[in-house]
């Protein structure tokens, strides 16, 4: 089985110091690390690797991005590849996915592509799906657990508000990992020294058979950065068509509907039955659908 893992170099949130007045990040003091979600994906890939399997790591970025590939090689990845177009200074999710897809096709399509569900940099979370589009593969995002069974992958994925769902997807596929709590293993000295020595191959546009034209996407014209200005959440507003007296009443009760208050007293058996009856009346005890 051939596994590919896409990694990215992102600013370490602990070292990001945003100027609260201008929103600029002080680049001097920002440290860059491998994105934690990508690291979790790499750790899962390394755990999945059987004897005859290989794990290849790729990244899109300038020479500084080699650091994540070296860290991956030190952790035990079999081979590493950096993709970059020297004419660019920054990249967009669409460009990154296009380069990754092109490289994967060039090097021979793997059976599975793993990556993080969302990066700590601009954090678009679009790359897994875009990659799936350019490879015409199915995609699953926010995966917390996975198990490979023949040509299919069984997975758990994380939904909003603590809900979860189980599913399966045919291989080959793109899986975006959201397993927080999984950390990349700690490299031994020989592996680390070898990784530091390794020469990281670079593929640019011509190698990938792409021309700059392929990478032109409708760019948003203005792109300003501001310190976070939280957006007003919904809040109870007294109905201004009511009389002042009624509006004051609504303010005093903080908008809560008046409660029909009932107080009971009696032996524990009776009280327990009363509570159960009340819960049944409000539909808390019928089985979830």
């Amino acid at each position, binding site marked *: 089985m051939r596994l590919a893992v896409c990694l990215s170099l992102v600013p370490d949130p602990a070292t990001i110091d945003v100027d609260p007045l201008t929103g600029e990040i002080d680049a001097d003091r920002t440290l860059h690390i491998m994105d934690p979600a990508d690291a979790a994906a790499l750790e899962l890939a390394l755990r999945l690797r059987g004897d005859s399997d290989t794990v290849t790591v790729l990244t899109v970025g300038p020479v500084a991005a080699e650091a994540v590939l070296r860290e991956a090689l030190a952790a035990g990845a079999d081979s590493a590849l950096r993709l970059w177009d020297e004419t660019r200074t920054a990249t967009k999710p669409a460009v990154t996915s296009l380069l990754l897809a092109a490289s994967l096709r060039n090097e021979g399509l793997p059976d599975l592509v793993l990556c993080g569900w969302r990066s700590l940099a601009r954090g678009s979370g679009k790359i897994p799906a875009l990659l799936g589009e350019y490879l015409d593969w199915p995609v699953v995002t926010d995966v917390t657990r996975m198990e490979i069974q023949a040509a299919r992958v069984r997975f758990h994925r994380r939904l909003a508000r603590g809900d979860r769902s189980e599913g399966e997807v045919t291989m080959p596929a793109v899986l975006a990992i959201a397993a927080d709590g999984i950390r990349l293993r700690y490299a031994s000295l020989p592996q680390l020294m070898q990784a530091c020595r390794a020469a990281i191959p670079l593929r640019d546009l011509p190698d990938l058979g792409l021309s700059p034209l392929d990478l032109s996407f409708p760019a948003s014209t203005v792109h300003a950065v501001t310190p976070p200005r939280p957006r007003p959440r919904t809040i*109870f507003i007294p109905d201004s068509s009511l009389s002042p007296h009624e509006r*004051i009443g609504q303010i*005093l009760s903080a908008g809560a509907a008046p409660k029909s208050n009932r107080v009971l007293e009696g032996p524990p058996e009776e009280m327990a039955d009363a509570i159960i009856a009340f819960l049944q009346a409000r539909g808390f005890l019928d089985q979830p659908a």
Partner: protein
Amino acid sequence: MSSPSRLLFSPLRVGNITLQNRIVFSAHLTNFAEDFMPTDRHAYYYRERARGGVGLIITEEHSVHPTDHPYEKLIHAFNPAVLPGYRRITEMVHAEGTPILAQINHNGGQSSGMFTRLPAWAPSAIADPLFREVPKAVEHEDIHQIIDGYATVAGYTKRGGFDGVELQCSHSSIVRQFLSRSTNTRTDAYGGSLENRARLLREIIGAIRVAVGRDYVLSVRLCGDELIRDGITIDEAVDLARLLERDRLIDCINTSIGTATQTLYMIEASMRIPPNYAMFIPSAIRKAVHLPVIGVGRVKDPIQAERLLAEGHADLVGIVRAQIADPEFARKARENRADDIRLCLSCNQECVGRMGLNRWLGCIETPATGREQSLGAGTLPPAKPEKRVTVIGGGPAGLKAAAIAARRGHRVTLLEKEDRLGGQVAWAVRVTTRAEFGDIIRNLVHEVEQLPVGIQTGVAATPEMVLAGQPDAVIVATGSLPDRRAIPGADGPRVADATDILAGRVTPGRRVLLIDRLGFHEATSTAEFMAEQGCAVEVVTQTLYVGQDLGVTLDLENWYRQARRLGIRCTPNHSVLGIEDGVVTALHNYSGQIVRFPEVDTVVLAIHRRANCRLYTALKGQVAELHRIGDCVAPRRAHAAIIEGEKAGRAV
């Protein structure tokens, strides 16, 4: 070093200045002025909060025109003699690195000729319900005088060293009266549509900008809902905010609710009103404009303030009474010591309560408020020599004395006969609408726990026990006891004291008659407490109306609203003569008739207590230094106990 309050302590640009954090000590009356001029008292009062780490200070209103003088201790900013006082304030505040704005205002028709012997000026000749004097509908020349007044005073504030001004357009202001259809029935260019009603405000803003230029902060305090008939509502307030932002002449919008002369109880909300009750106003305005918006309304806690910012309801949070109670609110919040903050009770007794009585601003739990120069931070003399001090009584008086003495370095022991500290306050908190009054004890206990004070509860102190400890000084704070002697038959059956009811020692019957001679919360909250449990309650008092002093703490209107809902009958003007087997007889003050009230299951007494000075008299002459403080001198309200606790703590 990121503290939990990430947003509360992130700087913000307002006009040409940068605020170090989002906490604003917003405008409020102080009555510190003398001869209509700012005084040293103002300077020390504001500096104490600047030193406490607040992000921005906005002073009380200063008047811009001689026709504006609704109450005695108002600062006449139109008189250039204010400049030395201004410089004194701004220098002392700027020394702490804190910016300060001056609020300037003309109260218009919400006034009378009482002081000025001139007609009050207003948009239309509609008398204000509180002052009940018909004002003069201003002519265009008068309007120009007012606008010039604003511009001149703005100039004086700049020369006085302020960083900017705030225009009061809510509470009590001629600008508010022009904006509100309830007071503006003009048909000229200043009345009718919102643009017309806002014309005076926009002309004032323009005149001020000409006088002080663009590099001077200009904040406008708008009312989000006047809560009166034909008053301003949230939709008009939002439209007005958009209008002002489009003029691009103001730097910040402050918000408020209610009017000063009709719904004051909704402006300085007491503990009956839920926290964040007015946050819908800044939230709605912030959806419509990009200017920084200040949200105000019973914000008592840094975490509550941080949540308001995080949920986007405001950019800055007005925190006033909480900083009147604890000037170091901001620094303690920044250093993650929120527990050490002396929480405000929202009781309104000694701050806004004293304003209505024309007295200078105080605080029920902070004697230094208003007298920062003599009692403020750093004025506590270290104990020389260090003494062994025994305090008897764990109520507000005893706790305060123990805290002050221990803080100075004395070795203090506190004895309390109940198994819980708090004295009478412990009962007041049983009523849901008075629960926050318990914070007065929570604060004192928290303060005393951090100091080397030996606390022994459940110890009924006897003279021998006190003397056995060989104290160098003794402070007696044994409080007061019920006094049944005042009413014949009061010691008979079916009669209970209000504290018995609240403590649950006595369960009231179905029909209850409460005799109220205090006219304050002890009576009205006990009535509410019993009514909520289904009792049929009638309150009888000799005063003109039940709860005569609830107006001082702005609880009157909301108590009566609740009393009507709970069916409490109020019978004023009846002086109780006696009680016999559940039957109360009283004298109707104005008819001279003797009235026998129908028999009730329980008669509850909310009457004056008597000092419990047994221990004091026993110890007199036995100890080198003996003090007596609080109710055991004379039963009074909590602020008296706290002040005497401070005095004794400093005297020992």
